[in-house]
């Protein structure tokens, strides 16, 4: 049996490595390289989608052992529905992004060599795929770090900019610390699996087979959660994310934000549901709480940004939070043996994983197109791009609607499912949870609404109105490959939103394997058009009808109103009859978010100062008004600065040891020997 999902996956990874090798060998002809290598990655990603989709759809599980690694601990690979699902997610987005890159990367030609970009791009993809395929601790960590290192170099791509270096450094530090934590958690589990004798315990199978004592299991879980949270950008471990994602090339930020974070989600699901399996409810509570905090804080910080890509990066924090909410709920339900509800929550979480990959990738690609056209990341300068780049604007708008969880697009469906999961929490036997979990639902609602506000701002300020900056660049629409990339993901967003039932039907095997219940049977209870998570009396949503209905009415209304020739007079802006309106008078990003800044001000560290140059020596007649606003992440001051300062303090103290005089060194050895003789003999 040669033709297995696993073999397809192998071939795809092989293609990626081959592409990297090609880029390494023929780095003379850059144009050619871009064409060939990115086409290869496109094919490879598509193959991965095929492999993953197949494995999930048919519920296949392949296991392979490669003759590599330590002889006692060879590389174990396993392609089961869970990994298949994530393969599909990653593959799908990387497919779109690879097409997009065909055009986008050409933008660097002339400025710099793109060889390293291509090489690390391929390695990055390969790393992500391998992470999902890994079935033993060692190989998992190796792929994990390959992924991290590759993305580190990608962030570093434009390394002459200081901000890139700073961001890359921060990123690699956090990533590595997280990796160490994950390593430890695996160490704990492997140890318990075999009593620390020999290497057999490091395979995931061995971990699955063991049932862990609660204390150790908790240690393992907390370590793993810390590690994966660091990668996923869960608050308060998120600070690297808004630094690293904006400065990377946009196709890379699309991948990092869209799918790299998802590998962390994969890790959490894998460790909790698959490897450990049995856990108390408060694990879920922990995940839920961190999810909620990340969701709300993430969107609030996003609202304060005026750098387009930074804004999107903070939204990744938010969406990761939403995903974690679903997973946390699933864990709680599981711990109370409510498989059906757990399945619902888990499906919601994983569905949102898929959706976020799609629309966040789309948005970053759009931002990339804007950046590509305007050489500008600061929204305060932008405006009116919709006229120059209509396609990009349309796709970006679709992304905005989807991420704001508005029907009929995909973001809404997954959040709606999450709400349903929340609404089912009263059936939990614990009164405390009954009282507290609804609060979570409210917070989620707040998040959704704020996200909508944020993307009205993002789209409105970027694409609508007039150009705000002093000198307007000659903007041009993105190239056709870039447009195709965006269009495909936009269509995916729509499809997932309109036909969720099909998708849920496909991925149902996951929840069956992980929590032991399917929801598809009930989810499509009254036909494929209606999504009815538990029962149609309970709640129902029909994507097709909403979409078709609205469109139909719009069309009818349009036709009716244009029955008689309807003239449209184009005139200057009215604006209540105000004459001297300039583009500087428009609302910009900062002013748009001002009310929310006022209301939630206590959550940021805001420095706001107004300098007023008055006329006729009286404040009442201002000539000039300078407004300066600086908003920083609270967690810098709370978490990171103290750590850094402390370590430097210690190192200064430690430096005293090495203070030059040989006598002192002799005294060290003298004292050492004496002390040892006295105490440790």
């Amino acid at each position, binding site marked *: 049996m040669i033709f297995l999902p696993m073999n397809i996956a192998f071939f795809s990874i092989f293609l990626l490595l081959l592409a990297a090798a090609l880029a390494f060998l023929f780095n003379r002809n850059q144009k050619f390289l871009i064409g060939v290598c990115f086409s290869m990655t496109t094919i490879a990603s598509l193959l991965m989608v095929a492999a993953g989709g197949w494995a999930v759809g048919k519920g296949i599980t392949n296991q392979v052992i490669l003759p590599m690694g330590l*002889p006692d601990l060879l590389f174990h690979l396993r392609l089961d529905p869970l990994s298949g699902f994530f393969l599909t997610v990653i593959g799908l987005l990387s497919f779109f992004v690879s097409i997009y890159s065909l055009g986008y990367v050409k933008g660097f030609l002339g400025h710099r060599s793109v060889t390293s970009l291509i090489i690390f791009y391929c390695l990055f993809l390969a790393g992500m795929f391998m992470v999902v395929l890994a079935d033993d601790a060692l190989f998992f960590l190796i792929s994990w*770090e390959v992924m991290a290192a590759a993305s580190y170099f990608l962030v570093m791509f434009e390394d002459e900019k200081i901000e890139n*270096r700073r961001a890359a450094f921060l990123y690699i530090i956090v990533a590595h610390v997280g990796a160490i934590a994950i390593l430890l958690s695996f*160490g704990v589990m492997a140890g318990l699996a075999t009593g*620390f004798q*020999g290497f057999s315990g490091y395979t995931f199978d061995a971990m699955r087979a063991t049932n862990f004592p609660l204390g150790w299991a908790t240690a393992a879980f907390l370590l793993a959660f810390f590690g994966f949270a660091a990668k996923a950008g869960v608050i308060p471990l998120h600070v690297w994310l808004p630094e690293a994602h904006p400065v990377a090339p946009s196709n890379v930020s699309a991948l990092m934000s869209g799918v790299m974070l998802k590998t962390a989600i994969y890790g959490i699901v894998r460790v909790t549901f698959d490897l450990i399996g049995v856990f108390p409810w408060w694990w879920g509570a922990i995940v839920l709480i961190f999810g909620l905090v990340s969701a709300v804080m993430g969107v609030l910080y996003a609202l304060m940004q005026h750098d387009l890509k930074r804004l999107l990066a903070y939204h990744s924090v938010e969406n990761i939070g939403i995903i974690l909410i679903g997973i946390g709920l699933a864990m709680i339900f599981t711990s109370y043996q409510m498989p059906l509800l757990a399945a619902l929550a888990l499906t919601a979480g994983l569905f949102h994983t898929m959706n976020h990959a799609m629309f966040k990738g789309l948005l970053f690609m759009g931002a990339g197109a804007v950046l590509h056209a305007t050489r500008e990341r600061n929204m305060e300068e932008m405006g009116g791009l919709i006229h120059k780049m209509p396609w990009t604007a349309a796709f970006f708008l679709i992304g905005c609607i989807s991420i704001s969880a508005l029907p009929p697009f995909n973001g809404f469906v997954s959040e709606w499912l999450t709400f349903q999961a929340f609404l089912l929490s009263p059936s939990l036997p614990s009164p405390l949870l009954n009282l507290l979990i609804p609060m979570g639902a409210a917070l989620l609602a707040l998040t959704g609404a704020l996200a909508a506000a944020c993307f009205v701002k993002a789209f409105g300020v970027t694409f609508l109105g007039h150009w705000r900056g002093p000198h307007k660049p000659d903007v041009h629409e993105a190239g056709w490959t870039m447009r195709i990339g965006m269009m495909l993901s936009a269509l995916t967003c729509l499809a997932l939103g309109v036909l969720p039932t099909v998708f849920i039907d496909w991925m149902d095997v996951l929840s069956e394997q992980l929590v032991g219940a399917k929801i598809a049977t009930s989810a499509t209870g009254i036909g494929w058009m209606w999504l009815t998570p538990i029962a149609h009396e309970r709640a129902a949503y029909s994507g097709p009808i909403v979409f078709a209905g609205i469109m139909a009415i719009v069309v009818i209304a349009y036709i009716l109103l244009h029955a008689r020739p309807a003239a449209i007079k184009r005139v200057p802006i009215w604006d209540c009859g105000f004459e001297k309106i300039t583009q500087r008078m428009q609302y910009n990003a900062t002013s748009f978010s001002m009310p929310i800044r006022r209301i939630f001000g206590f959550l940021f560290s805001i420095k706001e100062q107004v300098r007023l140059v008055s006329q006729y020596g009286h404040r009442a007649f201002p000539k000039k008004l300078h407004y300066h606003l600086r908003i920083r992440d609270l967690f810098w001051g709370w978490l990171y600065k103290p750590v850094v300062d402390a370590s430097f303090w210690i190192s200064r103290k430690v430096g005293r040891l090495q203070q030059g005089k040989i006598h002192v*060194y002799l005294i060290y050895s003298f004292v*050492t020997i004496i002390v040892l003789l006295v105490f*440790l003999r």
Partner: protein
Amino acid sequence: MPLLILLSVPLFASLVLAFIGDRKYAPEINIFGSAATFAAGVSLALDVYANGPMLAGGKFFFVDAFNVYLAVLTSFVSMTTAIFSRRYMRKEREHGRVGPIRMRFYHAMFQLFIFAMLLCLLTNNVGVLWIAMELATLSTVLLVSLYRTPSAIEAAWKYFILCGVGIALALFGTVLLYFAAEKVLGEGGEALLWTNLSQVSGKLEPTVLSLAFVFLMVGYGTKVGLVPVHNWLPDAHSEGPTPISAVLSGLLLNVALYALVRCKVLVDGSTGTHHAGDIMMGFGLLSIIVAAFSLLRQKDIKRMFAYSSIEHMGIATFAFGLGGPIATFGALLHMLVHSLTKSSIFFTVGHASQMHSTQEMDRIKGLIRGNPLVGWGLMFGVMAIVGMPPFGVFTSEFLILTATIKDAPFLTPFLLLGFGVAFAALFRRVQPMVTGPAPSYQRPIKAAHIPVIFHMALVLAIGIYMPDFLNQWFHRAVELLK
């Protein structure tokens, strides 16, 4: 027979080079000599791999899995270092930092140093072990002060005195060991042969051996560079010529650790407690922490990597002290990959400082732009040394960490602290050196490609595909060190 070649070639080569070391073709001879040594080492290794441990020269030499792989490693790294030093020293000579006499001296001492280390590894006599160790020190002292700059002389002096004192203490320990041994084995040379000692270690007097171990620990520990008797190491590494720094931290430290571990086995056998292991763990942990934090504020590039060597020696010592199959396996692997990685790092560092004619990290910039091999070599070297997969160092640290969780879970936080800080410190310094635009004062050089590529390829290979024979070796060694 290969054993004889292995030991005689470097000795002979050093004699020859003492006279013609300044000729144009001297570097080639140097390379050739060490290549021959390496070949001999390999054949010896194959021999041992086939027929198991062997005694030779009337029990004077003893070769088993543990020391043979270190011997091969030593000869290999010495060979690559010789290749590296060919171009490096030529450059130094062009800059007029070393004259013909010193070149002679340099080559001769280099080979002598190799000889001393091989003798140290292969001898069966604990006393001779000590002598060889002292010889290794003495042969490198004057190499450290090769440039005759004040700081070089200062560094060499400290190296000389501190290691002298340390080694003297080790001799005292050896005397005590002999004292205990002759009770069992009777007088004469027999009583210092490791093979005999290890057989009767159960009968040796515990009090004496634990006393002896204290002296051996501090003595050999000084050469391993364990805190708090490490102070000579950063100076010596930073001031000597780079090839010497490479072999010092790549090989000498390993050899010293080897001696220490051999002694530990005896002490454990006699006392039957984990006492010696505890002491080693203490030293190791202290070294890791102190070195990691010292890394944070380094300005001199070679000095920084010297501290990183202290840290990694600490890790290995800690793991040996921890004991148990996984930890010991990890420690052995760690000795191997560390010396490979660290020496390759020193190669790149040497070229980098030649390109900018300084060792100050603030003035070293844009290496990738300037010389991709040096730049990427340094980058990947550092990635490897801080324990990032897929390089071999990760594998060993992986094993050591996971073993620690079991035996001493409460030490893991400290271990992690050390790793984390070291990682941050190294990256913080290396990233700006490697990346960014090349500065105006950067000068192009002809870098020695082969050693760096060789080493990194090996480390990578060990990381993702460890050959089975290596595994076998380590397992045998683990058995020996039980």
